[in-house]
């Protein structure tokens, strides 16, 4: 990494110069002055950032950089101390998470949230939007929703086949492997026909054998016209599939650029060296990532039990991040 060269100053996606917080030619998400503090600690402090439409954007950074918190803020799962952001030109500040999802901005979670005691198919059907049978009174009269349910089931089956989960259709989601759950979560998100898919560490805890297929699926989303924003540690994955990379450190956006050159940026090197000086980012194996997440899970579980509010789960995720950061 000693041969740090100056990255290119322009890029087709960018209007003007490439710089942290630069303006995009066609942005789908624009965030301004988003700040989130936990106690006295600032977890996120993003002055300006734009996500390009129709592209795969990676959000990277050392642990504790505030990536997941930023994700939570954008999707309404956490509330910022201040800031505004918009999705397709409409403000999303103070919009509750379920309405964010209805507007077409659907996320997955770092710790997979497959609904264990529902079958894989039921998981999928839950993703479909505007279901008539989801009203309590309409639910009682099957003819009102039977046709829609059938159409949704067909769509779900098609998606399951695409994600190679069709054999598991009737199994409880709890019986799936970690990687299969990641796939299910992604497929379920697609059921709602989103415009922007936000994947929080899609590779975490995934068996290496499944890695390639997951990468292909993420690329497939772009081919279907969706925008993808994902958080990832694994630089191999970032290099393989992303069109654009945004680097966060200590809550701020410190660099942006195309994946080929982003690691040459001095700010990125500094950001990573500050925290993970003993790890070559390119060689962090999946097992290592899995181990880190396993630890994080344990911490989060412990925290969940004693933290008082619903905010706590998101807060404690950040805890875990920060603890890792110190290790």
């Amino acid at each position, binding site marked *: 990494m000693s041969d740090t060269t100056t990255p290119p100053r322009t890029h087709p996606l960018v209007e003007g110069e490439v710089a942290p917080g630069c303006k995009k030619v066609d942005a789908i998400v624009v965030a301004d002055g988003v700040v989130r503090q*936990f*106690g006295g*600690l600032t977890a996120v402090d993003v002055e300006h950032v734009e996500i390009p439409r129709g592209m795969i954007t990676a959000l990277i950074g050392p642990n504790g950089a505030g990536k997941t918190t930023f994700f939570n803020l954008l999707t309404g799962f956490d509330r910022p101390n201040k800031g505004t952001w918009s999705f397709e030109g409409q403000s999303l500040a103070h919009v509750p998470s379920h309405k964010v999802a209805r507007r077409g901005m659907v996320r997955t979670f770092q710790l997979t949230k497959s609904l264990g005691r529902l079958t894989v198919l039921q998981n999928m059907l839950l993703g479909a939007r505007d279901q008539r049978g989801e009203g309590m009174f309409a639910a009682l009269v099957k003819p009102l929703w039977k046709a829609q349910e059938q159409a949704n089931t067909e769509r779900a089956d098609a998606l399951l086949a695409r994600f190679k989960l069709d054999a598991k259709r009737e199994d409880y989601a709890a019986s799936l492997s970690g990687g299969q759950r990641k796939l299910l979560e992604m497929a379920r998100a697609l059921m709602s026909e989103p415009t922007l898919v936000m994947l929080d560490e899609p590779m975490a805890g995934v068996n290496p054998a499944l890695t390639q297929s997951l990468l292909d699926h993420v690329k497939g989303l772009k081919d279907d016209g969706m925008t993808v924003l994902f958080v990832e540690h694994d630089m191999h994955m970032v290099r393989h599939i992303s069109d654009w990379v945004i680097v966060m450190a200590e809550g701020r956006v410190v660099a942006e650029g195309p994946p080929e050159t982003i690691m040459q940026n001095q700010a990125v090197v500094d950001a990573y060296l500050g925290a993970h000086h003993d790890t070559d980012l390119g060689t962090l194996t999946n097992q290592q990532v899995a181990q880190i997440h396993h630890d994080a899970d*344990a*911490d989060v579980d*412990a*925290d969940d*039990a*004693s*933290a*008082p*509010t619903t*905010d*706590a789960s998101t*807060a*404690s995720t*950040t*805890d875990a991040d*920060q*603890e890792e950061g*110190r290790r």
Partner: protein
Amino acid sequence: MGMVAGGATAVAAAPLPATEQPSPFSFNGIIRDGQEPVEGVAITVTGNGVDETAETGADGRWSVGVPERGTYTVSIDTSTLPEGLTLRDPSFESREFEIGGSSSVGVLFPFGESSGGSGGTGGNTGTGGNTGTGGEGGTGGEPATGGEGSPGGETSTGTSSNDFGSQLLSRIISGLNFGLLLALAAIGITLIFGTTGVNNFAHGELLTFGGIVFYVTTTLVNWPAWIAIVFTLAASAAFGWLHDWGIFKPLRRRRVGLVQVLIVTIGLSIALRYFYQFLIGGGTYGLSVDRGPVLQIGPVLMTTSNVVSTVIAIVVLIAVGLFLTRTRIGKATRAVSDNASLAAASGIDVDRVIRIVWVLAGLLTGGAGILYTYFIGANIKWDVGFTILLLLFAGVTLGGLGSAFGALVGAVIIGLVTEISTLFIAPDLRYAIALLVLILVLLFRPQGILGRRERIG
């Protein structure tokens, strides 16, 4: 048993037509104030589908017929008693009787001074009287002993004068006394929650355990008080240990989920509570060790036991505070409370800490049980602990779940709120007020008054 074979289900017999045919069984009695019969007192018999109320006639006699053998609840409506007449034992307001061999059962309602009452402190009739002076205030009183109701209205602090200031002062002192008792028990709840994540719904039974062991040793087998106290404390600590060894440690081993463990504690609470009732019966029993002479401090009257128990509670709470902050094992306890996996990773034996927490909880709560029997008038009932369980939770939640210091502050606040509220609203609503405080806290500051909203690192 042959009679029951008629087949109608025990709880289902229709009450409406029951009066039409002569009843084969009956409850009856005479209500007298001294030698004078009392007229117009309402007695209600319920159970097995029967719900009959009778009033005493001019001769003070009453009788209620019931169609079949079985267990019935006979209760007296104390609000129909004439001014100045109170039940000697508040628990007699509602009792269960069984009609078995004979066809009629006589039920007595003895009146007069409460068994554990300490003269004219006013506290012994307390709940009824707004004045709280002398022994007369209690007629309108609702001793509140039915079912799982609040325990006897006995608050053992009174005043020698009627003005609001001294009333308030007396309530505050009583509230502090109560709050400190609650704190002793609540610290156990909060430490258990902090270290294991379990909300222990059987915690009230730890308190009752202390009271019952003390009752048995002092009153039934007549041990000297100090031996009884030492024995009770040792037994309570052992009982706490037994909880962990017999139930909660195996559950941790099995990795049973927290909601399941919560329900296990509910089952444990039911089992223990009714086992206590099986052992000592359903009544309220006086302790042989009395509450000592009444002391007058300024305008406030209080029993010696109150002063002693307040002092003991303060000393013990300070000791617990020192234990948690100064000793190695105390610090380890707080570390586990803070983050169990991190503590385990740094070499703390979490299982040992939890075991110590259970023993400590048993000890403190059992000790609080002894003191609580005195707070409610030197008597014991099988469900005293359960009746204040929610107050304990209120205190713990108010202070912030998991924090020992918070539990202390929260419990004292709950004690004060409970006692002071009796100056403004009906005393039988005082627990409702404490629970309302709990709900409001959860709504507006779920982390408790001392808790932090967010945890970091």
